[in-house]
């Protein structure tokens, strides 16, 4: 599928999508509420079949947070990047995609651990690297690191 057809498919599920081409991929930015529907559609639809989630990460911007999903289809060979925008920076929540791609279970735990984004319906949402009593979320931009080894 070429990029125009991909755009149409995405628009049919999430009409309020913004498109951008950067990093060598087609980037689609959607509100976080649309994420699970769009992900499921892209995974199951015969023309898209995005079965390989090769990267999942979070991003902290001053006004909002983003969860980024890099997808590839092993059948068709095309790729897409979904960016789910979470407006509530104080209490960020989004649906899990670990029921669609199993690898998301670990990656979402990492994003929860370092950004504090809560993934609804995740089977086992706990911190993965840091200890359970760690205060704060280190990859957030407003995180205060008292023993920053680079600035020391």
């Amino acid at each position, binding site marked *: 599928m070429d990029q125009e057809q991909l755009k149409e498919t995405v628009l049919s599920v999430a009409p309020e999508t913004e498109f951008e081409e950067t990093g060598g991929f087609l980037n689609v930015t959607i509100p976080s509420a649309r994420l699970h529907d769009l992900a499921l559609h892209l995974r199951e639809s015969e023309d898209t079949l995005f079965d390989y989630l090769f*990267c999942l990460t979070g991003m902290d911007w001053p006004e909002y947070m983003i969860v980024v999903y890099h997808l590839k289809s092993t059948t068709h060979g095309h790729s897409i990047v979904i960016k789910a925008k979470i407006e509530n920076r104080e209490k960020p929540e989004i649906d899990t995609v670990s029921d669609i791609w199993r*690898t998301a279970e*670990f990656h979402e735990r990492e994003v929860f651990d370092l950004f504090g984004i809560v993934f609804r319906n995740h089977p086992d949402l706990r911190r993965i690297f840091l*200890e359970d009593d760690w205060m704060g979320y280190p990859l957030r931009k407003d995180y205060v690191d008292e023993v*920053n080894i680079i*600035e020391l």
Partner: protein
Amino acid sequence: MAETHINTISGKPLESQEYLINMGPQHPSTHGVLRLLLTLDGEIIHKVEPHLGYIHRSIEKMCEKDSYTQIVHLTDRMDYLSSHMNNEAVSLAVEQGLELEMPERVKVIRTIISELTRLSSHQLWWGVFGMDLGAITTFLYGFRDREMIIDIFEETCGARLTMNYNVPGGLMFDIHPNFQKRTKAFVAHFKQKLPEYDQLLTGNVIFELRTKGVGILSKEDAISYGVTGPSGRASGFSNDVRKHNPYSAYSQVEFKEALSEEGDSYARYKVRIQEMWESLSIIEQLIDNIPEGDYKAKTKAVIKLPKGEYYQKVETARGEFGVYIISEGGKSPYRLKFRSPGFSNLSALDHMAKGAKIGDLVVIMSTLDLVIPDIDR
């Protein structure tokens, strides 16, 4: 639950229950500080729960304060057996942002050293895999041959493991005058020795009994869990970045992507052996054809990437390694994400080990070829 047994004296049924046991963080077969919490019924594994973070250094956070040349130095502390490829991924991502075209000489040297690194990583894996199964000889064989490659690296750039030979814009130094001669000597030597690897393990009855049919991962699961590299290819998941998204000089060479259908530990073993032959072939195709020219393109002393996003993937010895840079135009990235192959490969461990015995878990872990700093980052 296990089947019920009857106490022969009292005549009452014996009760059994699940219990938890820690494997690691200091366990020889975890090859590093990985702690697995096992839920067992007798010797049968019901659940494997990895507990990570023992060596988490927060490299991604450090990168947000570092310059791009400094970031390269952090990457070979992740998967230290694929240090050259990790360095290359960051260098390529930065070059992509600067729209720098590398001289042919750089591309070819990078490819040769990548393949040498892959060979040395697979040699070490083969050695410790045999040792995990109780065969000490393999460890000595693997390390003997690996030493020759490490010596070449030392002569090339002064370091044996954490090389930092790649820099954004080319290479740190030109190759040593001995490089071609020594690499050719190694290839000739290892072509004699690789069949010995086969003779030692491949046909061995005990080895085959312990690996065949153990830890099966289907192709669908390999894709869903994002298991890449030799481990994914052993399940039939064609994911070789060198084939699908060629970088450096991989488009100039001919090689086969080692694939298998079975998806068991034996298939993962065979795929890596096959990959060593392919790496030798790639080196042979390039070693006499290193183009003349600069070993470096001109870059500014302080590299600033234009505002935007850059994603670069490379094939390390463990699978697909991705670098995702978000730049706001400054001298360090706004956010940088490393997609490390070990992290995704580990996520499939619980699925693969369910129903297996503890001894099988050692085999499964070993054939996934986990490097813990790559998982923890």
